[in-house]
């Protein structure tokens, strides 16, 4: 299942940091890390939006209605994430980061499934979808690692650490494939992608909020 996971660590983990020796170099700031995280989350959202557009543009308008499955059925809806701006603003930095991390981890497996599905998807734009899915998967893992790093920086004691039980399990996948026709494939794909798109927007908003919160001395960066 790690076939698409690159062995290379994310760019920001191995970012050109000078070899610290005897405290002669400066550690990287959280603000910089959050800045990079915001860039990655932005890319995630942009890619998922583009992939959704690719998918929808080739469908007949009538079919679009049928495909409107309520997104409340997404597997990540069980996560207790804020749904309001006020709720979001009330959360602490670490809580927000924890939620982001949980979200990202919940999408590890489903994204891999999406990649696999995209290869055989009966859709004219499946090539574009394929590389987008692959990129999504990779960037999600990158971001997950980066958020972990930020969490470690902000909360070294691990007070806010979460157990992996909280990660939303995803039951879909192999069960759906068996005996499914082309239509179901498409529908499942579309639904899953829509779920991810919504979650990527959530993640992006959270990270950007965190970034702006962290850079209080540079409000113009927001």
């Amino acid at each position, binding site marked *: 299942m790690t076939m698409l996971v690159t062995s290379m660590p994310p760019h920001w983990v191995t970012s050109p940091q000078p070899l610290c020796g005897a405290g002669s170099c400066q550690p990287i700031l959280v603000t910089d890390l959050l800045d990079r995280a915001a860039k990655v989350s932005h890319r995630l959202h942009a890619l998922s*939006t583009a992939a959704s557009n690719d998918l929808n543009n080739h469908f007949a308008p009538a079919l679009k209605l049928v495909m409107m499955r309520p997104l*409340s*059925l997404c597997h990540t809806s*069980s996560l207790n994430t804020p749904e309001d*701006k006020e709720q979001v603003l009330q959360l602490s930095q670490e809580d927000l980061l924890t939620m982001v991390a949980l979200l990202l981890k919940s999408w590890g497996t489903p994204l891999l499934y999406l990649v696999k599905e995209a290869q055989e998807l009966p859709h004219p734009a499946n090539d574009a979808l394929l590389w987008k899915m692959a990129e999504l998967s990779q960037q999600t893992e990158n971001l997950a690692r980066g958020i972990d790093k930020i969490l470690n920086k902000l909360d070294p004691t691990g007070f806010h650490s979460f157990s992996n039980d909280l990660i939303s399990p995803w039951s879909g996948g192999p069960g759906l494939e068996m005996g499914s026709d082309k239509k179901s494939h498409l529908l499942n794909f579309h639904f899953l992608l829509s779920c991810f798109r*919504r979650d990527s*927007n959530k993640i992006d908003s959270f990270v*950007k909020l965190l970034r702006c919160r962290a850079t209080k001395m540079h409000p113009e960066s*927001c």
Partner: protein
Amino acid sequence: MTSVTSVAGLYLIANIAVLAFSILQFRKDADKLLNVINFTTNIPSSQKLPHFTTCRSPEQETFSCWWSVGDYTNLTGPGMLRVFYKRSFKNTGGEWNECPDYRVGTENECYFNTTYTSIWVPYNLELRSENKDVLYDERSFNVEDIVIPDPPVNLNWTLLNTSQTGLHYDILLRWEAPPTADVAKGWITLIYEVQYRAVNDTEWKVMEHEKETYLSIYGLKTNTIYEIRIRCLQLNFDKFSRFSDIVYVYNFVPVTKESTFPVAFVLIFIVVGVAIVLMLIIFTRQHRLMMLLLPPVPIPKIKGIDPELLKKGKLDELNSILSNQQTYKTEFTNDDLWVEFIELDIDDPDEKLGHSDTHRLLSLEHLKSGKSLSMKDDDSGRASCYEPEIPEMDSLAFNVNLMEGNPEKACVLNSEGTVPNPDLSSPNATQPKAEPEKAKIESSGSEENMPVRPYPLIQTQMSNQSWANMDFYAQVSDITPAGGVLLSPGQQCKSEKTPEKEKPDEAKKYQFAMTSDSAYTSEIDAKKLSAIPTTNENDQNPEKDLSSANCISTENQSEESPYTTNETTVITMPPVSDYTSVHMVDSQHSLLLNPTAVQTKDMSMQVGYLTPDQMSSIMP
């Protein structure tokens, strides 16, 4: 039987009831289905149903939905159409609620404030009739997908700079994010699109999307009104806001073109005037002015060379000229050929020659040489023509001597030495003997005296007819590249390594022979040979050759012959058997041999050289 019929009747009634009920239900559903079908298949019904027109959230904190009654105008008015919504939370079904706020001020709007707005949560909206029976329209969306921000506000611009020509200028445009959008906290990220155009243009120029709230616009034209508008967009979404208010930009720069006109005219006028003046000067041939304004370009000139010669392209002559120059001085001095020559310093100021360069050169040389040779030169151990007594002689004296062991060496007699016997004095000889003359004997050893010295002396001497005082002669054996005439005694042949000797038996002849080591002839040589007076005949050629046999070795002869053959047509020698007196030097620097072959007994005086004793015997 009746029980059976009753049972059957009951059964029938039940069925009918069921049937009726189902039919009713069917009708209900059919109505629903009809509505749905009408909705989904877009059957162009005669009347347009009420429907949602748009749902929009300006800042992702609230949203509103608007609907339209369509053709059902009877449904206008509050409460006629109702909106119900359902939020699906966390896998729970959610419940239907009616619109929390039917905006009374605006028509057909349902407004959801922050309480009722949830992000990332699917909404379902329905447009129903008043009695909730008829569903006209429904919508489902997430709030974050319907964000359409408000337009930016507070557009203003400042002038950055104006171009030097005053035709263009740059401005810095500033604006602010819409106040409703909470960009400061990062809740929404906006990007902006600036458009501008000149007022009378039809198309807007669209700039690149800008994340910042300022933008520089370059290259606007002055004295043109521009209008600028901005709209914004939530990042990663494709729904733009409305356009902002238009701001007008105008930069007035007074046109200063008039000031440049006179300058241009003045410049043109000046240039034309100067051109006219120059033309006038050139065409009216005011030499003085021309010299002043347009000085002539100096033409390269080599002293001693007639430019005409260059044009003719005669290489040999050119070589001979060049050999006269200083550049060949050293070469000449390096020659083994020791030449000694006598200079005669004629005090006659008559200069009958023209004003040619060569004449000037010769005269100069003459003067120069005169000064330098006033003293006796050292002999340097060579047999020299120079004798101490000779300079005091007030008569022409010359001496020819040859270096021992070098048959080629001969005294270079200037042509004065070869001047014909004074006794032979031509009618032109006007120079009385008594005229004191100063003879200079020059040792060829002095290198600085080597060059062209004999040449000018020849000139002057010839012109002054001083040959009259000479009553001896010598045979010219060679012409040096420098133009000097080599006198050689009869026995002074290359083949014979005899020192100075006299060979009275030798045919005395003035001969012009070329030495082998001089690769070219000097001009005077050429002239001498070529410009023999027409009275001369070609017979001299063979005689010349004959006489050359006496003293001139074969090599001389051989060299001479090709030489002479070149000049065969031109060379004409007077019919003298053994010698010819040089009559004069004509204007072309050639020796005019006296056609009258005067042979006197005094010819026993040999060509070659005379010892001082002989000279003293000759001269009174």
